[in-house]
């Protein structure tokens, strides 16, 4: 019994569960990462990772602008990301290639504004705190008064994805089939961008504008390695998003007792490092499963070893393609 308590104490440094900022971080940070991960599944399937990244960068402009005028950065993140979503859709027209170019143009403009605002903000208040907060997040300084706003925006993003679940899957398979079936493909796409904008804005606050892409894409990409069913992919992404954030918070809290003593490492670093670890692990698992399946097929259908060996030899050719 004493051993168990000692073990728990070793992992959870004293005060972890009683600290107010930690509790807020666990609730808000966890929820936000979960939302991002779920929304991100469709970002990956629809091939819109670039748009997702751009929204984080646009958020930087909004967040730093809000900081400059003394408003809560969340409002800046949301305003700019939503405006950016509209601009991307407006300029993007119908061609996927046009969509990429449009995203790039909106992204460039956003970063320009962000540079200006961050410059004005830091020279005006003579501190680099704003830059750090905007770029790398501030999970431990979210006020309890903001919790209802976070909950509402999270529900909005999840609600959109739940509503569009089937049309999004169908148009990911084929835009033509979806529009032939009467799905308003452009409206669905725009609404999805809105959900993405909200999700990215929320994670800009917790994990930071620069790292929000990692929370959007990482858990989803890992989940897609682990399952071939749409519902399970979303469930896996949600679990991974939540787990890496909670574990990241725990490690960040513990890191106050690591060198350099009393400083603590940023949560965002741990979260992103954990996402990378989970993705690599998921990729290894899926490769193992694929190799195992290949061996079963080859032993059943032909001389042993042929099926398993042929694939690695073909991969350099596929890589050139």
């Amino acid at each position, binding site marked *: 019994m004493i051993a168990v308590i000692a073990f728990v104490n070793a992992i959870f440094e004293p005060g972890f569960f009683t600290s107010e900022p930690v509790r807020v971080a666990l609730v808000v940070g966890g929820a936000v990462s979960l939302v991002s991960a779920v929304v991100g*599944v469709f970002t*990956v399937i629809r091939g819109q990772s670039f748009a997702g990244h751009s929204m984080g960068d646009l958020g930087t402009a909004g967040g730093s602008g809000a900081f400059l005028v003394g408003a809560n950065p969340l409002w800046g993140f949301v305003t700019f990301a939503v405006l950016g979503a509209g601009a991307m859709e407006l300029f993007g027209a119908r061609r996927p290639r046009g969509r990429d170019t449009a995203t790039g143009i909106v992204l460039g403009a956003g970063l320009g504004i962000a540079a200006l605002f961050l410059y004005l903000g830091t020279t005006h208040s003579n501190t680099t705190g704003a830059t750090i907060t905007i770029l790398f997040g501030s999970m431990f300084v979210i006020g309890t008064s903001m919790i209802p706003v976070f909950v509402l925006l999270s529900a909005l993003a999840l609600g959109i994805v739940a*509503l569009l679940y*089937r049309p999004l899957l169908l148009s*990911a*398979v084929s835009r033509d089939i979806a529009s032939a079936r009467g799905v308003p493909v452009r409206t669905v796409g725009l609404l999805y961008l809105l959900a993405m904008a909200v999700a990215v804005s929320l994670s800009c606050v917790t994990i930071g504008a620069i790292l929000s892409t990692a929370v959007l894409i990482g858990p989803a990409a890992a989940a897609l390695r682990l399952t071939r069913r749409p519902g399970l992919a979303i469930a896996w992404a949600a679990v991974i998003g939540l787990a890496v954030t909670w574990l990241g918070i725990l490690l960040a809290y513990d890191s106050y007792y690591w060198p350099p003593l009393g400083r603590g490492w940023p949560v965002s670093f741990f979260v992103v490092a954990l996402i990378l670890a989970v993705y690599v692990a998921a990729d290894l698992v899926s490769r193992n499963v694929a190799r195992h399946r290949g061996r079963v097929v080859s032993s059943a259908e032909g001389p042993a070893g042929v099926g398993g060996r042929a694939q690695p030899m073909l991969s350099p050719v596929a890589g050139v393609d």
Partner: protein
Amino acid sequence: MNETARPGAGREEILSLEGVSLWLSGREILHEVSFSLHSGELTGLIGSNGAGKTTIFKVILGLETPTAGKVLFSGEARPRRNRSIGYVPQSIGLDPDVPLRARDLVALGLDGDRYGIPLPSRGRRQRVDEMLQAVDAQGFADTRVGKLSGGELQRTLIAHALIAEPRLLLLDEPLANLDITSEQEVVGLLASIAKARAIAVLISAHEMNPLLPVMDRVVYVASGRAASGSTEEVVREDVLSALYGHHVDVLHVNGRILVVAGKDEVHHTGPESEHTAVPRGLG
């Protein structure tokens, strides 16, 4: 109407195009195209690339609005949201990451245009299983769609289109990129679907020979114009020469039909130009 005397005697007219013309950015893509499709019949939409086949599909699907002429669905104007047309596009460029098994894609055919999250139901599962069986897809029902072979994906997409119980099934170049065995399987499957489900099936192809054994009717398209009827009525030198606007020969070789540019047009598509085309293709 003379339609009752045609091969589709006693069969119901599902769709008709009447004098459909389409202008896009100053160019006439379709010129007074007329034909009709009947239940239980398989119709081939034959023509070379760029002849206007895909545009005809878009007009039927309501994705393009004709500049002139009418598209009638069972004699009536086409409703905006139409579940009675099943559509299988030519290539869907699937991302291998898309988390869908063949059975999930078929299920999306049932209600993929609906909003909200579907509740798992026994009836839904059963219909999907039946459909998978109908296209002989049980063997790869649980495979990720991005990993299916060309023929497997084609069958899955056919099941996806059929499960909504359409009255008309459109397939854009379903035989492109298929090996000969899969080609014959898909053609046989489509012919039996048309008969068994009493639906109209329209297949576009640039090569008519694989379809000859099963085709009840042909719509031949060249430079935006179309001629329709039975193979004997349409694939003739006088009809096709009028369609192309210059003389073409129709040759019957071992039960296959070859349409080639006539002798007075050798400098256009004869052996000579083929020789000059080869190095260009390689370069």
